[in-house]
């Protein structure tokens, strides 16, 4: 079965049952069942329009589901939204800081509306700014910060109150490699210090490798749900990567192998390849090939097998401008 069960020995902190949501004629979520345990790092992976954001918005109490229920720490998100929100920390895909306030003022606002008592609030702000290495920027106006720093402030902000579940919707999108790495380092550190459930959506598959469980969704359904290793073992395929020396070789290989995927880098990837294929290619093209290797199954290939789409393309075509909101047709900001 597609595993909806929780890792052993932990009580579920997020329980989703039969969750459905429809926008007009489009079925965004088609009966999702899911439970996520305490202290788990849970990755949600899927192509654009797979239903990830809809699911996240329902969990954040921003959207009401048509059918089914979702509970955060035992509170129903549509019937007890205020109590559910108290258990939630959210880092949205789009920026949501007040750029005219300072870093500290943004964090303090969050603490106030989440009713964090004064002393605890002051302590948490200091701790979280240390965690994301922004202590010196405490009194800087947010509009003077870089995109990566803003992201870090938002992560610090989601942790000011005692959230049982922290949802990060594409926390690293649009950031450079160094910032991305840093953000994951903070999250790892935090997890060792505090009991916390993290739900992360991302387009960067390499980031998902460090998660406890990965859930791949498409067309509003769960396609696979398991640990990264188990997913690789089950759905992953070995592939041959070829670096052709010239265009003629490249087109030659592409013509011979209709299932080959041409990458932007000039490499050609042959999914499901074996040593026999390598021999055949070397026999056929010989010196036309500058490099050939067999790659172990990647989560990338798992994703490709399950959804029939390559996730990197999605990331590349992701527009930086506001995307239309499926519900109202207006830009989401």
């Amino acid at each position, binding site marked *: 079965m597609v595993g909806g069960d929780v890792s052993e020995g932990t009580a579920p902190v997020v329980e989703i049952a039969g969750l459905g949501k429809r926008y007009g004629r489009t079925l965004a979520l088609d009966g999702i069942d899911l439970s996520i345990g305490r202290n788990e790092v849970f990755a949600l992976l899927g192509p654009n329009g797979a239903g990830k954001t809809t699911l996240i918005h329902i969990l954040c109490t*921003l959207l009401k589901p048509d059918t089914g229920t979702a509970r955060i720490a035992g509170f129903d998100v549509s019937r007890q939204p205020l109590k559910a929100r108290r258990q*939630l920390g959210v880092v949205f895909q789009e920026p949501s800081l*007040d750029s005219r306030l300072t870093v500290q003022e943004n964090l303090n606002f969050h603490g106030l509306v989440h009713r*964090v008592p004064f002393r605890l609030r002051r302590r948490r702000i200091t701790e979280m700014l240390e965690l994301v290495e922004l202590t010196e920027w405490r009194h800087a106006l947010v509009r003077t910060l870089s995109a990566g720093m803003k992201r870090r402030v938002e992560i610090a902000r989601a942790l000011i109150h005692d959230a049982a579940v922290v949802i990060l919707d594409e926390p690293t999108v649009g950031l450079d490699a160094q910032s991305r790495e840093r953000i994951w380092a903070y999250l790892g550190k935090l997890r060792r210090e505090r009991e916390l459930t993290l739900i992360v959506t991302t387009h960067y598959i390499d980031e998902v490798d460090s998660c406890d469980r990965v859930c791949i969704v498409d067309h509003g359904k769960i396609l696979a749900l398991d640990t990264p290793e188990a997913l690789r073992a089950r759905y992953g395929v070995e592939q041959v990567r070829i670096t052709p020396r010239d265009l003629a070789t490249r087109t030659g290989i592409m013509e011979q192998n209709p299932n080959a995927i041409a990458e932007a880098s000039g490499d050609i990837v042959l999914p499901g390849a074996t040593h026999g294929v390598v021999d055949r290619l070397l026999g056929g093209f010989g010196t036309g090939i500058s490099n050939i290797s067999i790659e172990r199954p990647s989560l990338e290939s798992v994703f490709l097998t399950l959804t029939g789409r390559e996730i990197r393309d999605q990331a590349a075509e992701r527009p930086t401008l506001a995307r239309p909101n499926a519900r109202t047709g207006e830009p989401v*900001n």
Partner: protein
Amino acid sequence: MTDRTATDPAARTAAAEGDGRSFGALGALGGIWLREVKRALRDRGQLVGGVSRPLLYILIMGIGLNPYFRAEVYGEVRFVVPYSYLQFIFAGVVVLNVMYTSVQSAVSVIWDREFGFLREVLVAPVPRFVVVLGKVLGGATVATLHGCIVLLFAYFADVELMLGDIVAAIGLIFLLAFCLTSLGIAIAHQVRSFEGFGVFSNAVILPLFFTSSSVFPLDPSLSRTQLLVLYPEWLVTVIYANPLTYAVDALRGKLIGFNQFDPSAGPTILAILSVVFFYFALRGFRRG
């Protein structure tokens, strides 16, 4: 709201850690209020406008029209307001400053939606009522401050203020500011773009202001029929229908002791409209 704190996880943590109090919903209200006030006070342009606007009206319009105000119509003196034009227009200038600032503060609603901060507010464990109340109170506070800036010019307009009158005037100003901020927010939900809102505010503020008997008096000693001899009928109708007329009049009563209407009409109308506009502001917010 206070009875909630017993079951509030944050409050429980506080008790356990001895970390002080969170003040429950009041703290959240304070946080939202504080943000509105800070943002507005940091906006230099708004402050400059808040000082230059009254100066313009008092110095140029007030002083310029002062000599023509004594109603010494040749041949026949119909009606004499026992005040100088500067004194007469003073309350109107206060109201104008409050109007601009109140409506301006509603822009923060559009701003929040446009730049994403709205989400932070929507996932906060705060009832929508508290969010809207915090925003309206914040905007009203700033608008009241801008109204009080005008009061500082009272000396130059020959308006003598008693302490009791000042307090009553500030109360009225706040009520007016609350009412107009609610109206601004209610409309900001409908408009949703900065440009549209700019058009709206210009289309609403000045017409409302000029037809509120703020820059010229009606004659309280004349009957409506007699008034119609002086002014065209449509203008008199508009002035009577404009709720701001009564607000300006009540404020003028407090500032220079001159009332054209029943002094209690202003506060009553403002209180009713505050409730109505606040309801619409809240409804707009609930619909998202």
